[in-house]
Every structure is written in structure tokens, then in C-alpha cells.
């Protein structure tokens, strides 16, 4: 017997440990495709991996009681399955014990990421460990967000009734939900109003508040809406459809129905009342038309961009105060997968004097950078801004004020300040605004 190829063994073991880079997985695949001896070695090592994995599951020995609310996947009636299961367990064979261990240790299809003020009907909702089990769930009040194991972040607003069939399938019988795919291969099908709505990447909402009907809007990417064996309707960003008993037809795009879900949909957990959210999806009005004297607007921009260059920034997780920091942060380097949000002030009219706008915004993911100087904002518009937004401000400033102005239209205008707290998840702002627009771009890590 030839001594095993050490490099091949290393590749196979790293692959079985799920620690092989994609480039090397491709190399291993190519080797296995061409070399029968390599395949024999793979099967030998992978069978050992399988045996060790099953041994490891036995060691864990999670023979806890069946979690409440979890649906047994047997298609037979629940009570009959339980009696049969009890009989099999009494037999105490290795295969049965393994099935129980496997079944009870099997991860739930979704995990809660935001519970907030959610109130669930008794016996439904998340388990104590924060997982959301297969089966029916009824949300009586509030909003909630969970992430499925198939890569979708789903936000639901009460009152809502839905069935989590699997990690990639939800039946929505009542209520509103939005979904955002968090990675390239994420997948989700929502069944509502008699239609199947399948995500083709990346973000959409379903409104099932009218019995027997479902309104579908696409914020970003593309979805397919199909009813029975009928023709499939493809919708892209800014389009909508209504599904009913009889048909699926194009409808007017109106994201307003999902207003209370907008923040969660774009990955924001909390925000002060000084912040008004703009809907995700394409801009319905030009940027310059969003004006208010007493609040800021938050515009979700890119949701899964990859930085293509090093960008100068003003604040980061290393330099968490602006402008009162002795050092400048390192640039945001290329290759980061990010989401971006523009927070801005635009007055309705001039001459109203100096006002103070303070508050916080808390993100689900960690903030990587905040950009608030003119040049840096302009430099990142193309990559991190919305294609449908016009950011140009010829001859005008757009960033935050980093120094006091002693005589600004006859008054003192203190400088703005921002800070990053809560482990990099919360942006605190203290802005002094007057007649000019002020903007900052918040860049957050994207999964």
C-alpha cells in the first residue's frame, strides 16, 4: 500500500473540518475528479469523519424534553407519532437513540435577532434558547425579526399568523412581513393569498392583512410570484403584484404598508424619534425633496456592496469619537462587504436659527465606519450610495460641522459630534443644525 499523499490528506481533512478556502476546495474537487485513488482516500477519511461526528453527537447526549411548539416532521398525526416514538425509544436500540439525539439536537430553522416589544400567543414564538421552531406562530403585538438558516432575515409586524415550514419556506396567513436575503445563495419562498412568492435576490415584502389576498412589493432585486400551475410573474425593484383567489396581477408599488417594518428590514433595531426612516427600495422622490426642520432622515442605501477601494473615513470602531479625537481612523479598506445608510438633515426653510438634534441609532450589525466630511461623502457616493439618488450639491457643503462657528448668521453655531458605543452597534449624534444641509454616511458590516 502506498503511503498516503500528505498534501491530499491535509486538503481532505481541512475540507471535512469545514476550514478549507474556496480556492482549495476547487483544487480538491479537481483532484478528486481525476484521481480514483484520491477518491478512495477521501471516502476512507470521510467515513471516519462520519463515525466521529455520530460518536460526538452521542457524547453530547441532548435527550431533553421535546421543545414546546415544535412540530414533529412525521406527516402522521402528532399523537400517533408520539406513541410510536415512545415505543421505539423503549426498544433502546442504537439506531433509535441516534434518531432521538439527532432529532432533538437538530437546529431550529430560524433564530430570533430582535424581539423588542413582540407579544406572542401562548405556545408560539421563540423558545427559551432564542430559536424559532417549525410550526405555527402567532404574533399578537409589536414587531419581530428572525434569521433563517437558509440566509433570509425576516421581519414580521403584528397582528400576524405564519407557519415556519422550513428554513426556506414560510406560509403567511395573516399580517405583514418583509424579507431580505443576507447572502448570495440565501433562499426563501413565502406562500400567501394562494400564491408562492420566491425570492430571486434580495428584498421584498408581503402584506396579507386582507383575507385571501397578498400584496407583494419588491424593494430590491427580483422575486417570482406564481399561483398554482399558472404563469409566473417576475417582479423587480420598485414593482408590486396582488395575489388573490383567482389570479396574480401587477399592482401599484407602495411600500407604505410596511412602514413599521422598514427599520428592521434594513437592519436597524432602534432609533430615536428625531430620525424618520425612508422606505427601502428605489427612491420615490428626489433626495432634495425630503426636508424637515426638526428631524433627520435615514435613507437605506446599498445593502450588500463590496468596497472596491480604500475610502477615507471619519470615525471607526478604533476612533469612536468625532471630531474630538487626537488621531484619525485608518481608511475603510477594499473587500469589505457592507450596508450603507445616509442620515441627513435638510431644512424646509432658512432663517429659523440654530436647533439641536440629538439621538441614537442602533444597528443589528456592527458599524465599520462613519463618513461625515464633504470629500469623503462625495468619494463614496458612487459605490455606497443609491444609483437612483442625486447627491450632487454644487457649491454647497454637505458634511457635518467639525468646528464651532462663532458668528454664523449672527449666532454661534456649535460643532456637531458623533460617537460609536454599545460595542460598535449604536451611533450617538449631537447635531447643531441651521440653514444648511448636513449628512453622514454610516457603513455597517453586512453578513
Amino acid at each position, binding site marked *: 500500500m502506498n503511503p498516503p499523499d500528505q498534501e491530499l490528506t491535509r486538503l481532505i481533512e481541512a475540507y471535512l473540518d469545514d476550514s478549507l478556502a474556496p480556492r482549495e476546495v476547487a483544487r480538491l474537487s479537481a483532484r478528486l475528479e481525476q484521481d480514483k485513488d484520491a477518491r478512495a482516500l477521501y*471516502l476512507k477519511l*470521510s467515513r471516519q469523519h462520519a463515525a466521529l461526528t455520530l460518536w460526538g*453527537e452521542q457524547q*453530547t447526549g441532548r435527550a431533553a424534553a421535546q421543545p414546546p411548539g415544535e412540530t414533529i416532521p412525521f406527516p402522521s398525526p402528532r399523537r400517533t407519532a408520539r406513541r410510536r416514538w415512545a415505543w421505539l425509544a423503549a426498544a433502546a436500540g442504537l439506531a433509535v437513540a441516534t434518531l432521538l439525539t439527532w432529532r432533538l439536537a437538530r437546529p431550529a430553522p430560524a433564530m430570533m435577532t430582535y424581539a423588542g416589544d413582540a407579544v406572542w400567543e401562548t405556545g408560539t414564538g421563540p423558545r427559551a434558547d432564542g430559536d424559532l421552531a417549525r410550526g405555527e406562530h402567532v404574533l399578537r403585538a409589536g414587531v419581530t425579526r428572525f434569521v433563517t438558516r437558509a440566509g433570509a432575515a425576516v421581519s414580521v409586524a403584528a397582528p400576524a399568523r405564519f407557519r415556519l415550514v422550513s428554513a426556506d419556506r414560510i406560509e403567511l396567513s395573516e399580517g405583514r412581513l418583509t424579507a431580505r436575503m443576507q447572502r448570495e445563495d440565501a433562499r426563501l419562498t413565502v406562500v400567501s393569498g394562494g400564491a408562492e412568492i420566491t425570492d430571486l435576490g434580495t428584498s421584498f415584502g408581503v402584506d396579507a392583512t386582507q383575507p385571501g389576498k397578498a400584496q407583494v412589493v419588491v424593494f430590491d432585486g427580483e422575486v417570482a410570484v406564481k399561483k398554482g400551475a399558472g404563469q409566473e410573474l417576475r417582479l423587480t425593484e420598485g414593482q408590486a403584484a396582488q395575489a388573490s383567489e383567482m389570479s396574480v396581477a401587477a399592482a401599484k408599488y407602495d411600500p407604505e404598508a410596511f412602514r413599521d417594518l422598514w427599520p428592521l428590514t434594513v437592519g436597524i433595531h432602534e432609533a430615536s424619534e428625531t430620525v424618520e426612516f425612508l422606505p427601502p427600495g428605489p427612491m420615490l422622490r428626489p433626495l432634495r425633496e425630503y426636508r424637515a426642520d426638526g428631524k433627520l432622515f435615514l435613507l437605506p442605501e446599498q445593502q450588500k456592496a463590496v468596497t472596491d477601494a480604500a475610502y477615507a473615513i471619519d470615525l471607526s470602531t478604533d476612533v469612536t469619537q468625532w471630531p474630538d479625537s487626537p488621531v484619525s481612523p485608518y481608511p475603510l479598506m477594499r473587500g469589505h462587504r457592507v450596508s450603507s445608510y445616509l442620515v441627513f438633515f435638510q431644512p424646509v426653510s432658512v432663517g429659523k436659527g440654530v436647533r439641536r438634534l440629538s439621538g441614537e441609532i442602533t444597528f443589528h450589525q456592527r458599524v465599520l465606519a462613519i463618513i461625515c466630511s464633504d470629500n469623503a461623502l462625495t468619494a463614496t457616493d458612487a459605490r455606497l450610495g443609491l444609483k437612483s439618488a442625486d447627491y450632487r450639491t454644487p457649491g454647497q457643503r454637505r458634511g457635518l460641522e467639525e468646528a464651532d462657528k462663532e458668528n454664523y448668521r449672527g449666532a454661534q453655531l456649535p460643532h456637531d459630534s458623533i460617537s460609536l458605543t454599545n460595542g460598535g452597534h449604536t451611533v450617538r449624534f449631537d447635531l447643531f443644525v441651521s440653514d444648511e444641509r448636513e449628512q453622514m454616511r454610516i457603513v455597517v458590516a453586512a453578513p
Partner: protein
Amino acid sequence: MSSRPESLAHVQENFVRHILPLKGFVLSLVPQRHLADDIVQETFLTACEKAASYEPGTNFRAWIFTIARFKVLAHIKRESGRGQLLSAEATTLLLNESLEAEAPDLSEQVAALDGCVRKLARTARQAVELRYAENLGPTEIAGRMGWTVNALNVALSRARIFLRRCVEESLHPGRTC
């Protein structure tokens, strides 16, 4: 196709008897535990849906392994864009050769591992337990044990060689490799 209650019950009872080798088969091609669980469950659900088409007395194991094979390939094709799983072509070849070869009895291997893991040196045993009982990856295990990742990988590799020999000796005393 709806399944009669008796054929469904037959499929369910037999499925339980074959769950260990089935999961072992899936794990050998899709090494991530949670993904293998999903595929086993999908196999079970499909077997239940098709229970009426299974002929009692025929090779049940071959039947569910065939279903599992299609599930594995479908999964590989679905996940191919992520670059973290073997190619569909490599998987197909492995599937063919896996089903042809006489696979060792997995339940005996698992039982033998109990005694063999206890024979490992303390740190090697700890690494194996963290890897397979706690399902941690090499980077995390190395961090916990205060080792470099390279050192951890070498230790795991040596432990696996020891365990293979030990299990072989337990199951076939006196046989040399």
C-alpha cells in the same frame, strides 16, 4: 401521490432502523453536521411522500439511499456558488464509488470509538472532543487550547490516524493495514 397509513408506518419504522448508516452516508459527502441533518430530514420526508411506491420486502436501504443520493446532489448543485462544497462532478463520482464499495458497519465503528478515544493522550482527547462533541472548528479549538491552528491540525491528524488503527484493531483483532 398519497400514502396509505400502513405503507407510511412501514416506511417510518424502517427509516429509523437505517438512520445511522444513512446519516453516515450523507456526512461522508456533506461534512457539515447541520446540512447533513437537513438532507436526512428531506430524505425522510420524501420517503414518506413516496411510501406508497415502496414495495415491502425489497431493499429498503437501497431505496432510501437512492433518495438520499439525489438529495445530496441537489444540495451540492444548490450550494455550488458558495465554493465551500465539492463540485457536482466530484460528488457524483464519490457517490458512485461509495455505493459500490462495502462500507464498514458504522454502528460498530461508533461503538468502538468510545474505547479508542479514551486511549488517546489527554490533550489529543480534548481536541477530538472539542471537534466532534462540541462541533467546534479548528480555529476555535486552537484558541481554547492556546495552540496555533497548525499545531491543532497536526494533533487532530495524528489522533485520527491513531483512532483508525484502534477501531480497525477493535473490530478485526490481529488484522494489519
